[in-house]
Every structure is written in C-alpha cells, then in structure tokens.
C-alpha cells in the first residue's frame, strides 16, 4: 500500500514555482531520501505531505488529504520540521505530560527510557538545553510516538558530527524494530545514504531522478579510468565525467561491470557523486550538495 501518493503536486508562491507537478509514491516500509539544492522544493514538498501548506494536484497521505485532515493524519504520522521548533518555555516533563494527554499513540515510558540515556533532566526547560540536547529531546518525543509515517526535514541541521551519527543510528534501530516509513530531506547526503532504501533528487520543483538503492547499485558504476583508456571509456557514453587526483572519474549507467573493469577501478558511486553528476548533466547548479 502506498503511504504517500502524489499526482501532479504543484505549489506556487506568487510568480515563484516551488513545486512544478510532482508524482511520487512511497510504499510502506521504505526510507526515502529527498535530496536537492537549496530552493529545489524539498521543504515545500514535505510541508504539503504533513499538512502545513496548501497545494494543487492530488495528494493522499495514509489515505487522507493532509491539508484538510491534518489533525487526524497526525495520529498516524508525525514530523520534525526543524531542530529549533520545541517551545523554549516548556519543561521536559510538561512536554511528556502534554503528549501523553493529546496523543493516543504516545508511549511515555519509551520516551522516558530514551531520555534516561541522555543528560536531559525532566525539570529542565528547553531554553536551558544545548542545541544537541533539544534535538535529542525532540527525537525522544517523536520516536515514542507509534507513527506509521515519519517525515524529517533537515533533522540534523546545525548539529555536530557526533549527534548526527547518534541521530541516524537511533532512527535506523527504531526502523528495524517495527515497520516505519520515513521520508527525510537533507543536505548531508553522505550521512544518510546508508540509511536510505530509496532516493529522489529534486531540482527547481521537479523530480529529476528516482531510484531505489538496489537499482543504483545494479545500474550505476563509477570508474577511475586509466589515463591511456580514457578515449575508450568516453566512447561508452558516460553520464558524467570529473577529474580527481589526476584521473578521470567517469560515471556510467547500465553498463556491464566486467566491461568497465577493463578500463580502471570500478565502484558504486556515492549518492553525493550521483547527485552532482545528475544535476550538472541537467545544467543545474548543485550548490546545495554540501558534504
């Protein structure tokens, strides 16, 4: 069953087109990475999915229209929009009380168990916590919600490496614990790629690339070509070519791995390299692909 079904999803702000007709299906149990440069429409797409913004076109999330039915949708789905959105005045214990009071799927004991592993005290106010602790708290709250769909928009923005790694580790272990479906938009491509099952590249409001990670491993190969075989390699129509430490790195789609091995060292491209290749082949400006 498709948890998210979008057909011709479109959103404009005045003359600016944020989403230019997107078709998207996210099946149960997938972890989809939404990757794109700044202004590609990632946040707009996620906001439409969780009912924060109106849209044109068709969109069903868990069978509901998120814009008109947000409150009901949020019983089965939840999102982290930004790291800095927990109200600064709230105490940790109050946040737990409130969620237990309004959310039928909130497991307070689980959240407390998660918090017990951190240095966050129940009596603390959010404004007294460090940025990393606020994120840990938000994550503890969200992970304790028995949601079928979890939507994350740049969940680790502004956090140091250690917290980012912890974040994705706990996300992953939670994912394997039960059937969750996750959509995550991020710039930190390298850190999420081992978590993802599918990726979608967005550019200027359109989907420019959509593959499962298995497909990418099967179909895409990156070859560090020996300098003397560069002409032969180019004859095989690489998708992209770049230079690295004096060698041409060529990206191929759908070429036989054995055949490529004769040209140089073959490996599966990283999502970041793929992203740069796909976007620059479209003449885009992949300035958002920060590592």
């Amino acid at each position, binding site marked *: 069953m498709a948890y998210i079904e979008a057909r011709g999803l479109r959103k404009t702000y005045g003359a600016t087109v944020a989403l230019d007709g997107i078709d998207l299906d996210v099946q149960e149990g997938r972890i989809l990475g939404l990757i794109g440069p700044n202004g590609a429409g990632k946040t707009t797409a996620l906001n439409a999915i*969780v009912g*924060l913004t109106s849209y044109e076109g068709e969109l069903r999330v868990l069978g509901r229209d998120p814009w008109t039915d947000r*409150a009901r949708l949020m019983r089965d789905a939840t999102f982290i929009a930004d790291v800095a*959105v*927990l109200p600064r005045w709230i105490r940790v214990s109050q946040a737990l009380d409130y969620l237990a*009071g309004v959310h039928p*799927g909130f497991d307070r004991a689980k959240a407390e168990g998660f918090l017990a592993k951190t240095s966050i005290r129940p009596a603390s106010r959010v404004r007294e916590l460090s940025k990393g602790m606020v994120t840990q708290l938000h994550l503890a709250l969200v992970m304790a919600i028995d949601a079928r769909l979890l939507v994350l928009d740049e969940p680790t923005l502004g956090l140091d490496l250690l917290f980012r790694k912890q974040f994705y580790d706990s996300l992953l272990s939670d994912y394997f614990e039960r059937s969750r479906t996750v959509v995550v938009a991020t710039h930190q491509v390298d850190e999420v790629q081992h978590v993802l099952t599918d990726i979608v590249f967005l550019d200027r409001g359109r989907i420019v690339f959509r593959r499962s990670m298995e497909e990418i491993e099967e179909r895409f190969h990156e070859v560090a070509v020996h300098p003397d075989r560069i002409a032969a390699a180019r004859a095989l129509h690489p998708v992209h070519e770049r230079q690295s430490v004096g060698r041409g790195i060529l990206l191929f789609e759908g070429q036989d791995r054995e055949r490529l091995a004769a040209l140089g060292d073959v490996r599966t491209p990283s999502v970041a390299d793929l992203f740069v290749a796909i976007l620059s082949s479209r003449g885009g400006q992949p300035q958002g692909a920060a590592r």
Partner: protein
Amino acid sequence: MSTPSNVLADLQSRSEAMAPAEISPLRRLVWSVRRELWENRSIYLAPLAVAALFLAGFLVALVRLPHTVRAASALGPIQRQAAIEQPYVIAAIMLMAIAMLVAVFYCVDALYGERRDRSTLFWKSLPVSDWTTVLSKASIPILVLPLVTFAVTVVTQFVMLLASSAVLAASGLSVRTLWSDVPFFEISGIHLSHIVGFHGIWWAPIYGWLLLVSAWAKRAPFLWATLPPVAIGAAERIAFGTSHFSSFLQNHFLGGPITGGSDSGMSMDMLGEDPWGWFLLDPGLYVGLAVTAAFLLAAVWLRRWRGPI
C-alpha cells in the same frame, strides 16, 4: 470511505495489536488549556502578586482601622458603609484592571508568538486541530482568567474581612457592623456575575478580535489590533463629522447590563436582584457572541494558512 486503499488502511489499523485508545476532543481541549497555563503563568501569578501586594498594604493600614471605624460611625449609615467598604472596592478594581491587562497581552501574543518562535511547527505535528488550539486560547480570557480573578478577589476580600474582624474585636469594636457593611456573600455573587459575565463573556468580541489579529499579523500585532478601530473612528469623524462608531464601541463595551454601574464605578448594591436575567435578555450579548464566533472562525482559518514568520 469505500475506496480500496481506505479499506486496506482500515483493515491494517484494526489488525494492529496495540490499537491506541481514542482521546476525546474535550480531553485534548483541557490539556491545551493546561498548556496555556504552563506557558503564561502571568494568568494566575499577576492577580496573585497584586493581591499579595494589596494585602500587605492593607495589613499595615489595619493599625488605623479602629480609628477609621470610630470616625465613620459618626457619619450617616450610607457614608459609613462607603468608608468601610472602600478598600474592598479598591481591591476588586485593582484585580480586575490587572486581569484586563493580562488578557489583552495574552490574546495579542497567543497565536503570534507561536509563529514567531516557530513552535507552531511542533504543535502542528501533534493530533490537535486548529479548532482545539484556538478554542483553548480563547477560553483563557473569556473563562479561565475571569474565574481566576474572581477566586483571587473573593479570597483577598475574605482575608481582609477576617483580619479586620480580629483587629476590631481586639479593640472592642463591633464586628457585626463590619460584616453588615461589607456583606461578603452578596458581594461575592456580584463579583461572579460582573467578572465572569462582563469581563469575560460581554467582552468576548474584544478577545476574539485580538486573537484574530494575533493569528494574522506578521509583525506588530498590538499595533494592528488597535489601529483599525482608531482609524475607522477617525475616518468617520473626518468624512461625516460624526462619531457613531467610537460611541457605539464605548456604549457597548463600557455600558453593558452588568457593568456594575456606569457613573459611580463598582458600587456593590447597584445591581438589581437578578443581574443574570438582564444579562441573558440583552440582544447585545448574542450579537457579541456571534461576532466572537466569526472572529474565532477566521483565527482558526488563519492558523491553518499562516506558517512561522
């Protein structure tokens, strides 16, 4: 409801071992009101602080009470009662004034603040509808704050009466006269109808308007809340040389049925025996409530559309 994907979804949610218990809309509303009290502690701290300050001053002034009572006994019964009950009236007026200030500042910030600090994105990630949120916020100035003010006022006046009784008894003066000049239960009843009826329900359109502006404004909500009424009044004055709009506002909000008197302020015996009957029969009440409902509806709609600023 009968599309195949919905049926699948229904089947799936039914087959889940731990089907989450339903939470009633009322329970969500109550938790949301509680949330408002956590965030805005001034709702009860401000009246309590004013009461504490006033009581401190009153207790110091108790030294002079026997003298005041003796001096007042020389006056006629009406002047005597006025002199004796004066501090009780002042206490009530001070508490109502602070509650009014708290209500206005609360409303202006209620839906603006959550957008400014982006916490609206957290609240919207929870299964709480915009209706529940706006109603919980509207209930604070209309119901919660008046009840808090009423409770604090009554307790304050009771403490004042007890302390005064002790002082009077110690100096051999009549306690009975005090309690007949300041009839506690009667006054409490009048406070209840005045504070809840007038400050809460009769003024509900004002709070509705402030909440609407709070949901709409991208900056300076206080200015946006006060400017339109002033501008309309000024425009009318310039265009037609009249002031119907401002006098309408004045008459409606300052001259309603439970004002407790329009010229002499809060005199305690000026209301008829049945203030609620008067109140409930006034069509202005229902027009006001309809206008409030319209403002709140617009605030709900705006909260859905407006993102963080």
